[in-house]
């Protein structure tokens, strides 16, 4: 150990620079990887939608002057159901990946304290149209879907279907079926859970830092007094979705066209397309952060290589002496590798502390979640491997120093 440490203290500059570089690189890489994972989350979370390319979403159907009448929406729905190739139609207040209308609330089990920030989709035939997978309970019945909502339907009694993650959060360790929910303890309206679906993504994913992207409730019935509805149309697996989309556009234009605000055209998209568009901004930052990580690692690799090469060259004579005194090539190689491991190890340790401190600070000031511990060993391992890669070429060159060098120029 002593022969490893002594030279480090004799020439302090080079080892110090290596340690500092590694520490900085480690701190950056850990935090950038973490931000990267945050941005990736909305892309990786399952959205629960079955057959995304056979689901048409019509949105931005803006009513003029006054909200859409429910009867009119029902007529439109009936007309859409008559289009060949359409298996199910939903008229909803908002739908997944429709970003311009959102309904959110803090929901809690009746008589319980745990609240969860939750997105609500209020509409009829949602489970069938969106292709959701029920893991427990049942879908809404035809009677439940035919309910006349007061207002959008947020604050009234009735059934609800919730996602598994919301069920786990509100009723940990218990069956969610049959439990009752309310939107805050002052709201008298109570909803009974009749079904649980596996996944469904909310339509506000903010910075992607939310932990509850999968907290969603479904309420039945068409929202009334709502001027910005979205209509989901499920296309039969054997029908051509583009063909059906054109028909849907025609029907909606015919049924609702004269009540729309002129100049604002509804959009008719496949769900898959909407999803790609909504996630584009996350994709952009994922590329950016991945690029940053890569460049940081390359720069560090080059930096350690350059410094080690110089430092090895500086010690050519000493290495020659050691070879002359009986050290084998592999001894020299291993000596330099161990030295690099030590330096990079110290740097990594400092870097991890810095990464954690930076994260704590960011968490304190901004809405960023805590850096999970699992990132630290990953970052450390990455840098240690990198360090070994960087030292390989200079160390091999050093191990080939012939013993005769020792006899020269002394």
């Amino acid at each position, binding site marked *: 150990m002593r022969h490893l440490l002594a030279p480090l203290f004799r020439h302090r500059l080079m080892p110090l620079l290596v340690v500092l570089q590694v520490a900085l690189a480690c701190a*950056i890489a850990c935090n950038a990887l973490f931000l990267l994972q*945050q941005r990736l989350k909305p892309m990786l979370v399952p959205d629960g939608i079955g057959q995304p390319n056979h689901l048409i979403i019509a949105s931005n159907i803006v009513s003029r*002057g006054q909200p859409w009448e429910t009867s009119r929406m029902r007529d439109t729905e009936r007309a859409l159901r008559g289009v060949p190739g359409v298996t199910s139609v939903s008229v909803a207040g908002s739908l997944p990946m429709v970003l311009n209308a959102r309904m959110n609330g803090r929901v809690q089990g009746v008589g319980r304290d745990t609240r969860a920030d939750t997105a609500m989709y209020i509409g009829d035939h949602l489970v069938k149209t969106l292709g959701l997978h029920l893991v427990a309970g049942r879908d809404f019945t035809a009677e439940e879907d035919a309910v006349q909502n007061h207002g959008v339907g947020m604050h009234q009694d009735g059934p609800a279907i919730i996602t598994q993650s919301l069920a786990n959060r509100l009723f940990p360790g218990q069956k969610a079926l049959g439990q009752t929910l309310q939107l805050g303890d002052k709201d008298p309206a109570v909803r009974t859970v009749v079904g649980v679906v596996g996944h469904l993504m909310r339509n506000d994913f903010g910075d992607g830092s939310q932990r509850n992207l999968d907290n969603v409730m479904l309420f039945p019935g068409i929202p009334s007094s*709502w001027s910005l509805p979205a209509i989901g149309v499920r296309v039969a697996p054997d029908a051509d979705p583009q063909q059906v989309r054109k028909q849907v556009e025609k029907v909606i234009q015919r049924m609702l066209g004269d009540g729309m*605000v002129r*100049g604002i055209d509804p959009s008719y998209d496949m769900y898959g397309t909407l999803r790609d568009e909504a996630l584009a901004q996350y994709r*952009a930052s994922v590329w950016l952060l991945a690029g940053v990580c890569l460049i940081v690692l390359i*720069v560090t690799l*080059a*930096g350690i290589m350059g410094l080690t090469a110089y430092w090895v060259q500086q010690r050519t004579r000493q290495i020659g002496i050691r070879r002359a005194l009986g050290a084998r090539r592999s001894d020299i190689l291993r000596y330099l590798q161990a030295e690099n491991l030590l330096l990079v190890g110290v740097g990594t340790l400092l870097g991890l502390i810095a990464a954690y401190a930076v994260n704590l600070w960011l968490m304190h000031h901004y809405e960023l979640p805590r850096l999970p511990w699992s990132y630290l060993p990953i970052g450390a391992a990455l840098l240690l491997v990198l360090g070994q890669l960087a030292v390989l070429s200079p160390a091999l060159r050093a191990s080939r120093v012939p013993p005769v060098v020792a006899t020269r120029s002394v």
Partner: protein
Amino acid sequence: MARGRYAWHLAWRGMRRHPRTSAMVVVVMALGLASCMSVLAVFHALTADPVAGRHGETRTVMFRTKDEKPDPLRAVMQASLVQQVVDRLQDQTLAAVAYGTTRVQPATAPTDAAGDAETAVMFATSRIPAVFGIELLRGQWWTAADDHDGSPVAVIDVATAQRLFGTDNVLGKSIRIDDKRFRIIGVHANWAPALKFYAQNRKQYARGMAQVMAPFSAGDGVDMQMGQMSCPLGNMSDAWKQCSFSQLWAYDLDATQRQRLLQTATQVAQDFDKPPPGVTPVVYQPSLLTVREWLVLQHTVPDSVRAYVWVALAFLALCLLNAAGVLAARFLRRGAELGVRRALGASRRDVFFQHLIESGSLSAVAGAIALPLMLGAFALMRTQSIPYAALIRFHPGTFIALCAATVLTGLAVGVYPAWRAAVVPPALQVKQN
């Protein structure tokens, strides 16, 4: 002079002798500078004062109830409420503002003509030019009397005048906002604060400044797409008056005026929100927000951008450390020849400056490469669907900052290695070899 030339010559020779490490130093520094400056430019665009250059503070009123956390939605209230506050404070630079986008056409165009609904329209009370500092090119603003009568008059910007009529001499002509006719009485200069601050809505980065402005009370019956309101979409007519879509903005109030504004706002809100008998009324405690505070509440600067700033700064530090290390290694490797030079009479200053010139030129080259890299990064960011992409622009200020950063990094990278090279003791080096 000759000495200076000699130092340049030596520095040039030094660079040429190690083309690989020279290239590496340049590339690493250019990457660090470009990434750091790009992120800082974005950050600056998002945080800059949107109404820079005015001496007073622009403020909005947030009608929060007692003990309630600040909530930007509480600054957007019912039209009649804000109207009452404005009416009671005739002597203050204060205006009620409602804004949105809708279709604006010359009145002569056929009513069913297709047109885009994207014209930004602002309905405001008559003191709005003083509150926002909007300059009029010709014509006049509407008066308090117009406010009272709801006169259908409008002030439009030059660009819209050109677009609609092909000329900016449009006084007296009529336009249709949605379906309602308005007579143009004024043309305002393109009023373009760096950010449409009053229309911020949780990271929406609304574009397009108020192109058409009209009296607040003249908005009745106009369908508008409004971003920030309690009903999803709608118009300014009676049925929608219960929806919250109006804001109060005040400019340059002194302490007593602010006090009075808050008092009046409290009273009006309290009267407005009278509960049915038997229910305890909500206690209002409004507060004033500056544009800065308002933008902070709206999360105009996403937390991710703040995180990027730190990542970019740390990355620059890493690059500088890297370059400094490589340069130090290179300079110290020359110990022997420096010893000879020193022994032959070169002063420490000569050696120091020779190396500073060498590192300085490398950083200058890096800065020159960083500029196109940065422009490329901007172009790339604009093609991505980032909500604030439209704000990212290359300013002369950015270029000056880049130059300053280059010089500073050059010094930071060069000084220490150059000093280490300069203190090489001549005798020892000569002896050792």
